[in-house]
């Protein structure tokens, strides 16, 4: 990994944390999903995976060690892999907006599965059901954000990648 990769990864990780904090006053409306998708499409799987690990670790520094923070190490990489696989079959922004919506709507479920390992299945089900309204909003807002911003962001990233010669070297 080159020095410029390290710098790039640091900046991308910081932008995710900043993006999350900037929208944290609106429950379950976030830009992290879209950014992870854009990073995966434009900068590749490997670099985005490293960004995801740094992002999850930063959350521990910010919020302390909790079971939900641990889940971050699994749900964001799952999104990245999903986006990478989807990019092999689709290219339209609608496909990625739908993927963002599905991911947002299943966010609570993914966490509930994780929480079940610690507190039991009954707790996991209660956790998921209570959070369904948030998941619905999360899915809807993810779609709206992605359908508006996905294409311009991918275009912008691709321009910058060309300008700074940042194409992934795996």
């Amino acid at each position, binding site marked *: 990994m080159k020095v410029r990769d390290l710098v790039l990864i640091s900046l991308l990780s910081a932008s995710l944390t900043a993006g999350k904090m900037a929208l944290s006053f609106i429950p379950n409306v976030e830009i992290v999903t879209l950014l992870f998708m854009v990073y995966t499409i434009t900068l590749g799987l490997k670099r985005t995976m490293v960004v995801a690990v740094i992002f999850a670790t930063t959350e521990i520094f910010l919020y*302390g060690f*909790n*079971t939900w923070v641990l889940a971050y190490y699994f749900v964001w990489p799952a999104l990245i892999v999903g986006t990478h696989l989807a990019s092999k079959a689709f290219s339209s922004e*609608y496909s990625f*907006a739908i993927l963002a*919506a599905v991911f947002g709507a299943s966010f609570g479920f993914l966490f509930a599965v994780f929480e079940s390992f610690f*507190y*039991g299945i009954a*707790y996991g089900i*209660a956790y998921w*059901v*209570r959070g*369904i*309204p948030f998941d*619905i*909003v999360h*899915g*809807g807002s993810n*779609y*709206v954000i992605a*359908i*508006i911003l996905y294409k311009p962001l991918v275009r912008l990233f691709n321009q910058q990648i060309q300008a700074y010669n940042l194409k992934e070297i795996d």
Partner: protein
Amino acid sequence: MNKKLLSIMVVVILVVGLGALYSQFLAPEAQEGEKEVTLEIVIEKEGIEETFVYQTDGEYLMELLEEHSEELELETEETSFGDMLVGFFGYRADDGANEFFKIVVDGEDAMVGAAELPLEDGSVYTIELDTF
């Protein structure tokens, strides 16, 4: 009409519709005293060993403690890790003597703090003065 705008409108209608369906069929209705839990406070050196049985709708232990904070004479302290339990019944854990309040659930040490510890029906929560 712009295709994207139309799709956004469809999604907004879906969100509202699904939200309505949820509140109609799935929303948990809070019932007074849904769970019954036992709370024990043990401060051996002060001869304090109190047991309470509470009916609660609270999700986490901290909510239950806050509900009964006057009766328990609960004292908490804000830390970077969240609120910490520091006192009960007028006794405050002595930092200098390395004292702290340990939480035990059904005989096993809790791995998380009161704010993250879920309340489960029938469980026994013991808060005991200990040293490290």
